[in-house]
């Protein structure tokens, strides 16, 4: 046993994600935790590895028509349409609340043009309370015929390198699973200067009301999340971990501690919890405690002994 464990009897949960040091590997997935404030009554934000805020754009965005959500078997479809207050109002009205906590703040953002990506990055770059950014590249480029940045290695590379030039913080890039080979995109964003990769974003899906014969979402299609997507997410995280040298953060259907442990074992340096926050607002706390308990049971003193320990 190392000194810290002998002293406290508790395993070390600290992880280092390419220089971004977190006291434990658990954080919310963007879009499921608001701006942090919404969930503060239900759990101590200081207990989390990081807070990841709802995706921001250069200007406020109103989002899609309703209905925006539909429950499916072990999952939910959403087409919120990235409704958000915009980067300037976030800095002015939402960020001060998070200043009261010691937990690192990771700010998720997106753009519809390369210029927008660069501009938002520039505005966040000088804000000391922003520890890191997470780049959502699952958006269409309106200037390039609507091709989704994250589905084309060249477009993904351009978006990441544009942001990289404007940003002097840790740059996490969130990948979409709606591609033929996720490792191609992963290598492109690594080459463009990403410090870490989070994956996966939601899987595009659809549901129909058989009585009205209309799509259950006004947007017709939406992103599937929840336990239904976990095996797909785990497979993709495994592939990305093999393909790149930068750290990977696992996301997709994590509800219980054992789900998070699966991702850590295949090599994710940390995990994000999304839909589970809706089911149980304290689920991240349960997951952190469960990870610690598992390490104790397995006789491990440090979470890093578990990360990437997959036996093949």
């Amino acid at each position, binding site marked *: 046993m190392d000194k810290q464990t002998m002293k406290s009897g508790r395993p070390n949960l600290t992880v280092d994600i390419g220089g971004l040091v977190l006291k434990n590997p658990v954080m919310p997935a963007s879009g499921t935790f608001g701006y942090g404030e919404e969930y503060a009554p239900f759990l101590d934000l200081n207990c989390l590895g990081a807070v990841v805020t709802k995706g921001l754009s250069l200007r406020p965005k109103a989002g899609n028509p309703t209905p925006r959500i*539909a429950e499916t078997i072990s999952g939910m479809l959403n087409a919120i349409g990235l409704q958000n207050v915009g980067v300037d109002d976030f800095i002015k009205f939402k960020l001060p609340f998070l200043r009261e906590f010691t937990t690192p703040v990771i700010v998720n953002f997106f753009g519809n043009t390369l210029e927008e990506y660069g501009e938002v990055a520039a505005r966040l770059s000088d804000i000391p309370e922003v520890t890191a950014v997470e780049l959502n590249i699952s958006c269409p480029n309106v200037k390039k015929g609507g091709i989704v940045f994250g589905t084309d290695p060249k477009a993904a590379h351009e978006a990441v390198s544009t942001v990289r030039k404007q940003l002097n913080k840790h740059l996490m890039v969130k990948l979409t699973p709606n591609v033929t080979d996720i490792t191609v995109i992963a290598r492109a964003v690594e080459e463009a200067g990403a410090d870490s990769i989070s994956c996966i974003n939601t899987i595009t899906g659809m549901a129909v009301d058989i009585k009205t014969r209309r799509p259950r979402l006004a947007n017709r299609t939406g992103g599937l999340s929840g336990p239904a997507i976990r095996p797909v997410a785990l497979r993709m995280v495994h592939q990305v971990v093999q393909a790149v040298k930068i750290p990977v953060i696992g996301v997709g259907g994590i509800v219980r501690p054992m789900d998070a442990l699966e991702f850590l074992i295949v090599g994710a340096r940390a995990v994000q919890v999304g839909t589970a926050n809706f089911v149980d607002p304290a689920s991240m706390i349960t997951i952190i405690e469960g990870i610690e308990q598992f390490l104790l049971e397995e006789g491990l003193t440090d979470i890093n002994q578990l990360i990437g320990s997959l036996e093949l």
Partner: protein
Amino acid sequence: MKNYKTIILSNQEISPGYYRMRLLTPGFSETARPGQFLMMRVQQSLPPLLRRPFGIFRTGFLPADCEGMPPKEYTEILYKVVGRGTNIMADLHRGDKVEVLGPLGRGFDVGDPSEEKILVGGGIGLVPLYMLAESLASRCKVRLLMGGRTRDDILAVTEFERLGVETYVSTDDGSLGEEGLVTRVLERKLDKYPRSSVYACGPMPMLEAVYRICHRRQVPLQVSLEALMACGVGACLGCVVKGVGHTEESPRYLCSCKQGPVFRADQLDWSRLGEEPGYCEGCKS
């Protein structure tokens, strides 16, 4: 507001397809306001994945189990069995474990005690009106207009009467009370008591009709909306409704769970609300 890991004290069918569930919720009534709701997790295993929103019907106290113990504080919800979630709930019994997040949302503004109040409830939409009646009945004249398709949809009217509320029942088929729509009764009552303010909850077509009547007569109206929700705390933005001044170019969405579920009628874009499918969670879960 907090997440209660609690147990069911009772769960009984009160009318065909309608249930009353009583939950142990210490500390709940200190914070619960008329018109607020809770999110219920019906079982630990999946499905259903998401919680279901339910209006709070009432809170109260039961005598302690033994001397020296504090009285047991409870919260009641009424629900209609309509889908997977509520079917599971109907099979639960005393002592079964559930999780309850609440109280959530913005409730009714009880308004000026010198004004008379008319409450309009359609079917299960009666639920959030009980605590409102409770807080109003000692201060001003309260009338409840309760409508439903048949007598089976008329719930808990005697409980309102016990508070001193004047009640008027109407059913579409005339199987209980007056035959016809509750909105016809509303017109008549507003003819007689034009200075009343109105509070309504029920299916969207009823709310639209109530809105048109109140708007024409310039009577203040508050409505409680039901919406499909995932989180209930303003994080997912799944439950938004269109606010007044909403256009395609400059959309104005209001969050039902956080800025509602109760809205002043003049906050909402009524020309657009009817375009939404009637997706009240009570009806589809």
